[in-house]
């Protein structure tokens, strides 16, 4: 799973051109986005899933860690989804309420996705903008470094990191975020290069504004379009990575859970008459990823319209 780089380049070129013409790309884009049915559907899904994650917990009869002793030991018969005993989504193998666990897993997975993408975007943007703005030798060295880092098998390094520092939330965020800032930095650098010689930047430079201030005040805000699209498309990749890490048993600690952990537990028992344990987390996982893809694509198409 990788983001289509070609399109990102085209988008960034487009945004720079618009900037040159002195027209905000955002006003038109909003109209186009609203007209895009897929993207709106995606947005609605994401809003609903977020609402589920935030307030779902208030509807849960059980907490995400309580054991229901009346179900324990006969989950296949007694642990089915039922409104009568408050297990709307059934229970897991130990008799814990799956509804509460899915709510809580959704929180973790969304958080990992958003924070991971956030880290990637921040690091990538600052790095790329710095390289592009400073230019010359620094740029050369920084971009060579990116080339070198690109050749590192990241999943391996992530596994090593989790093995070495132990499993923790912050390590997961950091590890996942660090995986994917490289592409971002390249795109941002390209756009920075074309922004760099624009009048308002030169004006700022002439009045003696320090370089870091120019980057943060003037370059970065003009990259927002690319960054927004990239971040939206990055979130589902982060969620997928997290699910793989959970599958390897290196994810979050019990009693906390995530979609990846729930799905991999459910997949293990799918032939034992407890299919709901797979179905519910998988459903939320799949629709959310759909949502992000649709919104990301829609956002990009809205900002970079092509004749079709």
């Amino acid at each position: 799973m990788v983001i289509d780089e070609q399109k990102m380049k085209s988008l960034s070129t487009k945004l720079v051109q618009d900037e040159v013409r002195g027209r905000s790309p955002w006003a038109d884009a909003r109209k186009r986005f609203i007209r895009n049915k897929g993207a709106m559907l995606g947005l609605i899904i994401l809003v609903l899933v977020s609402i589920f994650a935030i307030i779902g917990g208030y509807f849960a009869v059980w907490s995400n860690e309580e054991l229901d002793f009346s179900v324990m030991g006969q989950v296949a018969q007694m642990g089915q989804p039922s409104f009568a005993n408050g297990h709307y989504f059934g229970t897991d193998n130990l008799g814990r309420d799956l509804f509460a666990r899915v709510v809580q897993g959704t929180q973790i997975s969304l958080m990992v996705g958003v924070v991971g993408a956030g880290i990637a975007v921040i690091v990538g943007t600052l790095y790329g903008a710095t390289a592009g703005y400073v230019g010359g030798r620094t740029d050369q060295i920084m971009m060579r470094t990116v080339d070198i880092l690109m050749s590192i098998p990241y999943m391996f390094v992530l596994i090593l990191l989790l093995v070495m520092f132990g499993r923790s939330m912050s390590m997961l965020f950091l590890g996942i975020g660090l995986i994917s800032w490289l592409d971002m930095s390249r795109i941002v650098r390209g756009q920075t290069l074309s922004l760099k010689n624009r009048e308002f930047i030169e004006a700022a430079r002439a009045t003696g504004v320090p370089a870091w201030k120019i980057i943060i005040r003037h370059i970065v805000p003009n990259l927002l379009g690319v960054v927004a699209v990239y971040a939206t498309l990055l979130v589902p990749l982060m969620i997928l990575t997290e699910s793989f890490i959970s599958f390897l048993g290196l994810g979050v600690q019990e009693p906390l859970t995530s979609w990846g952990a729930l799905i991999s537990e459910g997949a293990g028992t799918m032939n034992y008459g407890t299919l709901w344990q797979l179905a519910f987390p998988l459903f939320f996982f799949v629709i959310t990823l759909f949502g992000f893809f649709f919104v990301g694509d829609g956002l990009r198409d809205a900002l970079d319209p092509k004749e079709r």
Partner: protein
Amino acid sequence: MIAFILRRLAVAVPTLLLLIVFSFILMHMAPGGPFTAERALPPQVIANLEAQYGLNDPLWLQIWHYLYNIVVHFDFGPSFVYPDRSVNQLIAAGFPVTLTYGILSFVSAIVLGVSLGVVAAIWHNSWVDYIAVGISIGAQVLPNFVMAPLLVLVLTLWYRLLPGGGWSFSDPSFWIMPVIALATSYMASIARITRSSMLEVLGSNHIRTARAKGMPEYRVIIRHALKPAMLPVISYLGPVFVSMITGSVVIDMYFSTGGIGKAFVDSALNRDYAVMMGVTILVGALTILFNLIVDVLYAWIDPKIRY
């Protein structure tokens, strides 16, 4: 072009070196060692083991010995956890398997993905398109650790069509499930990328010109649209191949294929330093090689790009 390739290869050496040193240090900092066992070994036995494998030398000396043996003897050392085998033997046994189902998956993902994408683009906004988009998004997000046990359940237990696991280089029936499980999500992403870039190309001026000249549609597509539409797909292929190798751990776990994906995860968890280093170097080298091939292909298809 040749200068470009040479320059890239020259960068490859420091890259690998960096990777080796980084992983080596990381691995040795991790708690526990290859001989941490449930029954704590007497200190004397541990000392014997460490002396045997040179683990009591300072870290820099270990790295130096390691690099020396690789460069001079092409020897990646003995495995700590599989004492009967050297890392060279383990990789020689596992890598061909991973490579076989990896390449098969890679090729099927490209062929099916591109076809699906092209078909969807040609019949844009028809039911064909909708089905293709539906399939590709659905397939893209279904984790392969769900797909793999599902395949065994359906194809082995319910329909008794295929063996549930194992490996043979001569019997393709062992290859089918690994390839399906590994290729599907990449096939889906390729289909999505192909579809959107094909749509873009089909809407461009030179295609309109070709159509206006009265060229038959299939020739327009094959001769004029396909090649430029492939550009984004190609830039996507390097990372795909590498993540296929990494993702092969799921395949090895569920289908008993004995590839290097499982070997890597195991070696990291077992602190089998030498195997872990060997596989990391191998995958690192493959990543570099594949990125290079992709860049060359890219330049070949799009002569505008100069390096």
